[in-house]
């Protein structure tokens, strides 16, 4: 261990509220340049984890290491290079969008021109001089995103960033997030309770349920879990099953359907031929693709029954 350096890493992160473990032994690894999708149902412990990553709350157990530094010891040095948007957007309603960012800029000490840049990035330039109390929820959310980008951070932590956005805004923000690693060398961790959100932007996925990490890997690995199945419907399943097992294919039965793992095209043609030669009537041949959503539901459902 220790030879692989992660941009962000947690070890056995645990948070307890009133005796209940809200986050339990969470180990999360994030490499530079990744877009890490932190996925889980509402109440699974995503926001609690994110608050611990930012030092807003202290873990009961475990450690957070960011940029190779211990968060509990070098919080301020680490925070210099982190931009964040936690839960609902933060704002001063009586100030304009520009002044809201200015309160942060004075502390972050970035050039004034950066305010116009980030407002442009989230398409709020036209609203810059309007008071934030006049903003819609989606605009406030975009202002929060602009605030997180203000300090040109190395790591961006976004908690449900597309909350409150209309569909067009969602698509735009998703595209913006996708470009951040490529254009600005940022690494992004974003949380969501919707798999479709994560699926469209993330390169790596961590799934949390009941405070525990139940899956963490590249998104492609998750997609592979989306196993395909082949269903064949016929008049006499018993004969069918015998014929297929002679060819080394194990099947499961449901009514007069036989279900087997998906096969290459040539093999399917062979199976059908064999079944027909055995005198069976084939009614239907169909393929089933489990969606990522099904996998997510299965993963998190499994957790609940434990």
């Amino acid at each position, binding site marked *: 261990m220790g030879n692989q350096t992660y941009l962000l890493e947690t070890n056995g992160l645990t948070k307890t509220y009133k005796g209940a473990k809200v986050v339990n032994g969470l180990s999360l690894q994030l490499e530079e340049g990744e877009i890490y999708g932190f996925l889980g149902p509402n109440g699974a412990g995503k926001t609690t984890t994110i*608050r611990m990553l*930012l*030092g*807003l*709350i*202290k873990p009961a157990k475990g450690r957070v290491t960011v940029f190779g530094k211990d968060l509990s010891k070098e919080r*301020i*040095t680490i*925070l*210099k290079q*982190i931009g*964040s948007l*936690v*839960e*609902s*957007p*933060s*704002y*001063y*309603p*009586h*100030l304009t969008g520009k*002044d809201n960012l*200015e*309160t*942060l800029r*004075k*502390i*972050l*000490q970035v050039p004034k021109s950066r305010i116009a840049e980030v407002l442009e990035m989230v398409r709020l330039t036209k609203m810059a001089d309007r*008071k934030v109390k006049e903003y819609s929820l989606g605009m406030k959310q975009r202002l*929060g995103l602009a*605030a997180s980008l203000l300090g040109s951070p190395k790591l961006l932590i976004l908690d449900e960033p597309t909350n409150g956005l209309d569909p067009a805004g969602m698509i735009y923000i998703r595209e913006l997030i996708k470009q951040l690693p490529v254009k600005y060398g940022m690494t992004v961790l974003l949380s969501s309770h919707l798999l479709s959100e994560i699926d469209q932007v993330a390169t790596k996925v961590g799934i949390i349920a009941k405070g525990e990490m139940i899956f963490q890997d590249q998104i492609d690995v998750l997609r592979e879990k989306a196993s395909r199945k082949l269903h064949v419907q016929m008049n006499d399943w018993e004969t069918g099953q015998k014929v297929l097992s002679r060819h080394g294919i194990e099947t499961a039965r449901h009514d007069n359907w036989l279900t087997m793992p998906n096969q290459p095209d040539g093999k399917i043609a062979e199976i059908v031929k064999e079944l027909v030669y055995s005198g069976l009537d084939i009614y239907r041949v169909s393929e089933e693709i489990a969606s990522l959503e099904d996998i997510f539901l299965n993963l998190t459902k499994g957790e609940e029954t434990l």
Partner: protein
Amino acid sequence: MMFSNVLKSEWLKLKHSKVVFIVLASPVLATIIGLFSTMHVPEHQWLGTITTMILAHSAIFLPLLTGVFAALICRHEHSGGSWKQVLTLPVSRLQIYFAKFIVILFLLTLTQTAFLIATWVAGTLKGFSDPFPFVNVLMSVGVGWLACLPLIALQLWLATMLTSFAGPSVVNVMLTFPAVIIANSPLFGPLYPWAHPLLGMTQALSYSLGGDAGFLDSAVTFYVVMISSLALFTVVGSVHFQRREWV
């Protein structure tokens, strides 16, 4: 990160907050009260009017104001959910806390300065011909400023701890009204922070004129209580702010 940057950031948050009306409220009311004051001190043309104004300003408004300023300075962090944004900036929590403290002190300075001007305005409008006792009022205003520090420390602690604008204000109002009565007790007055602005301003005025308003048995007790309560509330408030969980 420079502390002055945190201060500038806090100052900017007061823009459009109409805080100037709050700063001027008590001096303006005191002026009106001063204009109608019939209190007359034989050898001193200004003294009756100034005393009336000091009583009105320091017994009720000043203690209330410390609470209003503290609540105001934390109001938008609570309502707009900005604590989590402010506290993930690369500055220590103590810097944030003391930047807020200093902004409140600055607002208090403005109020006290406005009050000083208000006494001159009231007397001048009444056509007083004796020279304005500037040094005496300045002494009173200065000690009044000092006497507000423990209250400010306490109110800032409450305002950062309770997540609402109303909470700390209600507590403050309830504890301010008995101050007038408690201030009359030479024993309990110095022990009660809400009575301190009244005690401080009246005593300082009379001492500077070579008299004694008679509110205090011992000025030492007053200053010891003031300094130790300031230290206590500041330490407890800032340590709590630094350690608390921002859920």
